[in-house]
């Protein structure tokens, strides 16, 4: 049997992995990344003279492409084209998203409020998927892209499932974001995605998050799925309530906390009122009436 040097081995890995694009309208530009189910490349569409993203997968069922195609939402990258490569692998092309991944975005200078507003927008496509009976099953910061103009896109629906993978008996997901029931290989549902979103919320909120926000995270990441928010919409609604200084469903506040929140919420009005009262008192003082 022929001896293969390390150099030859690396070369063979490359040629075995690099997609054969002959017979397609695309030319290879570079590899963009790897997901659980395939490799994503930047390719050039020669007919339309534009760059697009191409995902190459061994999965002959075209499951991911069909799921994405069924989910028309601004927060989910649409599929342009599907096809079969010369080497027998299946591919589909999508809009090439230019921006940064959420884990990279967090390292930039952003306040908590901005991060939470972004989080609420991450929940939107996931809530849309849940409303259509689809569970993502691998939500994590690396699978969220923040576009150049603030667009938020949930990526990599490679292990998404229309029935939560009820018959698979396999473990999918990423440790740290994977719900306990997923780790046990059990059926995932919308609440499994809520768990992953809760872990992402904790990631975005930071260690010094206020108590109501921590309570939202705790409810979203409860070990028992029945104690979590029912879906991404419920979770997003609670986060938005927190941002609007309204009571959140996950936290029972004290009278003092309620007063403090009320003061924060009506801070501008209270400032104006205080200024008016000071002015009024000054006028009364100087006029002697």
């Amino acid at each position, binding site marked *: 049997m022929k001896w293969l040097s390390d150099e*030859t*081995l690396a070369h063979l890995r490359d040629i075995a992995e690099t997609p054969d694009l002959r017979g397609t309208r695309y030319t290879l530009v570079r590899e963009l990344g790897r997901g659980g189910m395939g490799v994503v490349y930047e390719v050039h569409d020669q007919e339309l003279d534009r760059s697009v993203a191409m995902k190459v997968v061994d999965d002959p069922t075209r499951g991911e492409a069909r799921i994405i195609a069924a989910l028309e939402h601004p927060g989910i990258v649409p599929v342009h084209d599907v096809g079969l490569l010369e080497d027998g692998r299946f591919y589909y092309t999508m809009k090439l998203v230019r921006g940064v991944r959420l884990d990279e975005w967090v390292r930039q200078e952003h306040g908590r409020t901005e991060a939470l507003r972004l989080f609420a927008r991450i929940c939107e496509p996931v809530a849309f998927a849940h409303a259509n009976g689809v569970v993502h099953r691998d939500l994590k910061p690396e699978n969220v892209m923040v576009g150049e103009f603030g667009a938020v896109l949930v990526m990599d629906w490679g292990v998404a499932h229309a029935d939560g993978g009820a018959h698979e008996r*396999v473990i999918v997901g990423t440790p740290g974001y994977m719900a306990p029931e997923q780790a046990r290989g059990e059926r995932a549902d919308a609440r499994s995605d809520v768990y992953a979103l809760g872990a992402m919320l904790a990631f975005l909120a930071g260690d010094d998050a206020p108590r109501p926000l921590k309570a939202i995270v705790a409810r979203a990441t409860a070990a028992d799925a029945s104690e979590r928010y029912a879906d991404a919409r419920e979770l997003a609604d609670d986060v938005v309530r927190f941002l609007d200084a309204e009571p959140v469903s996950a936290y029972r506040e004290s009278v003092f906390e309620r007063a403090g929140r009320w003061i924060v919420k009506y801070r501008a009005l209270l400032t104006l009122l205080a200024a008016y009262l000071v002015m009024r008192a000054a006028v009364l003082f100087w006029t002697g009436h």
Partner: protein
Amino acid sequence: MSVSPFPTTRRSVVLALASADAGERTRAFDTLVACYWKPLYKYARVAWHRSREDAEDLTQSFFTRAFEKESLASYDRAKASFRTFLRLLFDRHVTNDWRLGQAQKRGGGEVHLDFDAAEAEIVTDAATLAPDEYFHREWVRSVFAVAVERLRERCESEGKLTHFAIFESYDLEDDRDVSYRELAARFGIAETQVTNYLSAMRRRFRELVLDALREVTATEQEFRAEARALFGGVK
């Protein structure tokens, strides 16, 4: 020993090890030996620092005992990949009293392995890798080598010797400075044919790598995980 006892199937030989059919078990065992004996021999030499003679005995006795006792059939896919299971089983074999009864097994075992070739393949940078990384690298090398050998066998049986010779010249030699034009002149064919032949060989090579991988994994999930590990791009 033939390297392609399962030439046309993608069935998992890991599952076939537990088959009630003795013939199927034997074929499955031969396939596993083809993919794993070199990595295990080198692992014994490098990670366990065994002498050449000891490593030969360990490898030989490991497979002989594994076949006789059908210990590989005890693999539990829920616990680990088959690759990890086999390495840990080998670790246990090394630490156990493997010498017991080996004298009568030497020369009478079921597997005949070319240890001279394996010895020549042990590279000098092995000490820089952790034992499991070293074993993984050698396993990748072995799976690719099995796929290359199967490709050569297929080409020979189909009369596509020029196809394989071009693949060998362009993709298997360390010196890849040779151009398509030079290959066309060397083999007396058009340059476009070189492109086509090479493309066809690479496509078949990829298929054979994945076939080999499917054979030595038990589940679709393990196959996908090992495919990512094999191509060096685990996320």
